[in-house]
């Protein structure tokens, strides 16, 4: 039972890290990136191929430098960041929001197809396996203790990411970014460079995805294109949506509910012999329904972002009343 708990917690820690990155892009920056898992995959692949030994005749991949784990993580983070930079420069420059979504989705499909078709790059459809885990051969770490060590490592990564993002959230950059999300024209009028802010957020989010990917690859020790469909991105998307976009604590809650309760909880459902795919489909069904229902009844999430009050204005004792005309207009358009 302890081993199982450690496994669940490790999974949770990795997904929480991933989700924080998407929240930065989507929750703060308003960029719904449907290829988010592509960055995770690039992080996983790149850190894997530099930490693994030279390719043998059983599996093909590029590089194979046998570098230590830390260097692998750095490479994974950097390459995901570079990919985000390229994609961001291209896609953020001139696209409407709905076209941006389609383009990110398309870019994800193109990259995943190319990786699948090109066997010499990252092992093609079969993927790569035997990804080395950090310090797995260290003598002072017995195999029975190792999962706990790995969990600690993931928790440290999560904590560091969380603290950095926490700081960014209240920094001038974070506030400007959310201003852009709420009203792009107004933010621009106040002198913010919208493109630069969004690009920065896109790249930092991509780097967080790379970090999570590197951890995920080392945790699973194998990675292939099958682990990388839109389904994975939508799980993270729902976690952000459920917890509350734009607020790191909310996002952590969302991950705990989606990955913890839903993914792990449904594993205990009795499987139907004649219908082996039933519980997997049921899990996706719940995720889809949650996505729609949350958007409908509580689009701000369970733990919504708190609007920061202006430091100089006196604290409002009662909620300010909306001007009459505006309220009427809003209720009429809702009808």
């Amino acid at each position: 039972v302890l081993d199982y708990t450690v496994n669940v917690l490790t999974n949770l820690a990795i997904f929480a890290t991933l989700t924080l990155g998407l929240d930065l892009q989507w929750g703060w920056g308003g960029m719904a990136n449907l290829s988010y898992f592509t960055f995770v995959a690039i992080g996983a692949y790149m850190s894997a191929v530099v930490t693994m030994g030279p390719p043998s005749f059983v599996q093909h991949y590029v590089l194979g430098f046998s570098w230590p784990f830390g260097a692998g993580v750095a490479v994974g983070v950097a390459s995901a960041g570079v990919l985000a930079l390229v994609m961001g420069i291209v896609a953020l420059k001139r696209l409407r929001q709905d076209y941006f979504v389609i383009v990110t989705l398309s870019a994800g499909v193109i990259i995943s197809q190319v990786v699948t078709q090109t066997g010499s790059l990252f092992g093609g459809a079969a993927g790569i396996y035997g990804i080395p885990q950090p310090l797995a051969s260290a003598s002072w770490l017995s195999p029975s203790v190792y999962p706990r060590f790995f969990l600690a490592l993931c928790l440290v990564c999560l904590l560091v990411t969380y603290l950095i993002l926490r700081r960014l959230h209240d920094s001038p950059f974070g506030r400007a970014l959310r201003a852009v999300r709420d009203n792009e024209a107004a933010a621009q009028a106040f002198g913010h460079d919208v493109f630069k802010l969004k690009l920065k957020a896109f790249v930092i989010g991509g780097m967080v995805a790379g970090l999570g990917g590197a951890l995920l690859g080392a945790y699973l020790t194998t990675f292939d294109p099958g682990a990388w469909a839109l389904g994975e991105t939508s799980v993270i998307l729902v976690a952000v949506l459920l917890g509350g976009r734009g607020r790191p604590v909310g996002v952590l809650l969302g991950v705990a509910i989606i990955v913890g309760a839903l993914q792990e909880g449904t594993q205990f459902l009795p499987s139907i012999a004649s219908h082996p795919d039933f519980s997997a489909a049921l899990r996706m069904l719940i995720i889809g329904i949650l996505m729609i229902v949350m958007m409908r009844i509580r689009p701000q999430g369970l733990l919504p972002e708190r609007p920061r009050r202006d430091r100089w204005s006196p604290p409002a004792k009662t909620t300010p009343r909306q001007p009459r005309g505006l309220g009427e207009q809003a209720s009429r358009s809702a009808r």
Partner: protein
Amino acid sequence: MSVLLHALGFGLVTSALIALSAVALSLQWAVSGIPNFAHGEYLTAGAYGALAAQTVTANIYLDALAAIAAGALVAWLSNWAVIEPFIRAGMQTGMLFIVTIGISIVLQSVIEMIFGAQTQTYALPAQTLNHIGPFLWTRIEIYVVVLAVTVMLLIHLVLRYTEFGRAIRSIADSRQLARACGVNTTRVINLTWLFAGGIAGVAGYAIAIAGGAFTPTTGYQFLLPTFAAAVIGGVGRPYGAMIGAVIVGITTELGAAYVSAGYKQVIAVGLLVLVLFVRPTGIFPAVASGGRVGA
């Protein structure tokens, strides 16, 4: 030369499939104003509707009716239950797109829960190869092309000569204006979803019989090529979508013949991205009369 002709022949069949799907997407995009991610699942619904009908009758022409019904029902339901309430609540397009992803996930998993994830096939009559002009097509492929052309003609007649078609075109231009001019927009929008869903159902059925086998994700795999065709033709313009479909279909099959069959999807999606950057209004933006739907 024969490689080229062979690829062109395949390309026309693929074009026919994408055209059916893209016209449906385009019609619905025109009246609701949102790119619908769940469109792929309407295709899948059509394929499975026909499969369910095969337990009753083995006549594949009658099964097409079940495909139409399934596609229309699912499309109408997703609009009535989810999309229209969101539009009325004033949600912006970007977020609505995320909502349609939710619909897509729900529909796909429901289909998987009912029919299972395994590959399905129709019981089809034996196939013979026929020379039609320069192309070598199976009976089924001929049937699919004829079916697509017939449906396109029907859509043309409906858009051009019926009150319903005129109402669709006016709503595509401006929902408020159409309502102000006495068009019953709610009714027309509901009917359009039924109509587009029915066409999508036929498309799914055609994809299933042309491909021979299908799974709950078959429709989803056609989503991006469909988007590509609809965007190339100019968003919300069914006639443009037909031409877009021919471009996408032939390009992908030529690419498959001369580059690698594995890159089909990449080529279609690449075209989509290219058009979004170079001409987001589509390559046929200036239709003679300036109307958004129809000419």
